[in-house]
């Protein structure tokens, strides 16, 4: 674990760059995370996905199934990889401040 400065504030991240303090997440933090994930600058679709993930996470404490994400945002997998080269889990979820996916997923 290490502390880094994201969006002007100090945040702890894990070995793979996922933030460990989800409460500190905000727009600026997301943008700084996006820079490292080659998803910067963030356009409307980036935010659509990130906000969707964020809302789902706040409600269910977990990231949604990728298929649900695709259906409910109308962005297909190809498009998601264009927006977030790291993919939905390692890219988009990281930027949305979600914890790293665990278990057999």
């Amino acid at each position: 674990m290490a502390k880094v400065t994201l969006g002007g504030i100090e945040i702890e991240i894990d070995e793979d760059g996922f933030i460990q303090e989800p409460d500190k997440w905000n727009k600026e933090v997301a943008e700084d995370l996006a820079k490292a994930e080659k998803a910067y600058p963030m356009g409307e679709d980036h935010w659509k996905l990130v906000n969707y993930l964020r809302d789902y996470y706040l409600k269910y404490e977990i990231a949604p199934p990728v298929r649900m994400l695709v259906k409910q945002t109308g962005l297909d997998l190809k498009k998601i990889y264009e927006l977030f080269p790291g993919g939905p889990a390692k890219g988009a979820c990281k930027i949305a401040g979600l914890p790293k996916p665990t278990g057999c997923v």
Partner: protein
Amino acid sequence: MKRKMKIEDFGRPARQLVTLEPSDLLPLPPPYDEPRPLKQLSEEQRERYEASLDGFVGIGITKPASAKEEEEFVRKFLSGLKKLLSKENNWTFLQPLVHSLDYCVKCQLCNDSCPAYVASGKQEIYRPTFRPEILRRIINKYLKKESGILRKLTASDIDLNFTLLARLAELAYRCSLCRRCAQVCPLGIDNALISREIRKLFSQEMGIAVRELHEQGTVQQLKVGSSTGITPKALANIIAFMEDDIEEKMGRRIEIPVDKEGADMLLLHNAGEFLAWPENPEAFAILLDAAGISWTLSSEIAGYDAVNYGIWYDDVQAARVAIHHAEAARRLKVKKICVGECGHSHKAMLVIADRILTGDLNIPRESALPLLADLVCNGKIKLDPKRNDFPVTLHDPCNMVRLMGIVEPQRKIVRAICPQFREMEPHGVENYCCGGGSGFAIMQSMNFPDWRNNVSARMKMKQILEAFGDVPDPAQKKYVCAPCSNCKGLLRDLIEYHGAWEKSGIFYGGLVELIVNAMTDLKKPFIEWEWH
């Protein structure tokens, strides 16, 4: 560089004991034959974690801050080792452990059966007999003090220190517990069991375990319900999504039964399916509905997640999880538990749990595969094999075939519904592990995935490519059928790492998806290739 490595060298100070060179690795057929650099740790990570075995980190043991801490580390290990060898503290596995430690005649017949050893270009440290020998020498030197003569004859210069033990712990996570070596051993020595007992010692006695298996694995599962983090509330949301999805594909709605008391069977899925492959539990629901079987899911803690990572590293956690599974079934008053497409859960529930569950917790438990074979082969569902007219090969999960002998049901199914089915070689009880066994598929931190994709999964990659060798055109879509969530996770990452979809049109998925894809009732194909 590959160097001859002696057991005595294992504890010597070195920045890194061995270095894997991409050009030493088992060659893959073209266009996968270009050696690729292996991901290195950052200097900062090397500083923080013990990585002096092979430069990869599976566990991430932090280094002791003082000589006193190091002493304490060694002391704890030795006291744990004593417990491991005593009946009171290790009634579960003492007998096979002692048998395997005492009776190996070092004929080395098992070596070439090990996928990690062979794929690494025969790196000495990955040899199936290497880690057991270290343990044996530690026992001889430090625990068998009483038998002086014997000790002199067998003991060698192996000195316990932090580095040696931390390397040993890491080395226990370079064996995927596939038990291929145990199968060929003429004396029935189980070197996988020794790897697992080493992991257990570190976990139970020293609090050292892989985060993905422990904190985020069994601990999270027992706390929130699933190692994936799915809570009962999230489960309900995902099930509603699955019902909508089924309706779209079938043109009619099927209710997925949850907590239905008195149903005949409780179906247990690896919860990874709900998040990563919801089409798998969907396909189960469609088939069980079509066959008129009385079944239910559970929404109890651990009742909707078949995984039991405890069997990979910790007896106590394994027992806790198994009891949760059985309790969920008992509360629902079902007649039996049926385990879906999850290999290690087959081992946990159908084999290991026999030693844990007693009385009214000893509920009949069985594999879903024979049931599925019955549905397919006895005409209980209308199927049209022409719908599966693409090349299909079958990956055998180690726990199903080698451990349990479940070999034919899955074959009967694919032979009946996949006109272009071809076996990979070898298969059945002689299969190779996918490379993701024993937790490797879910160990996603630092550079461990690179080791997995290049070493433990390399043999599987070769087998898959060879099975499809006659149809190299990427435009021809191909399906690797793996009836196990853990193997699927491995295959997904492996296919992505090698670009095998783009280069060869190779896709992967479960078994029930193929069955439902062949159902004449369906309006459109069930398998959606765009999820590669």
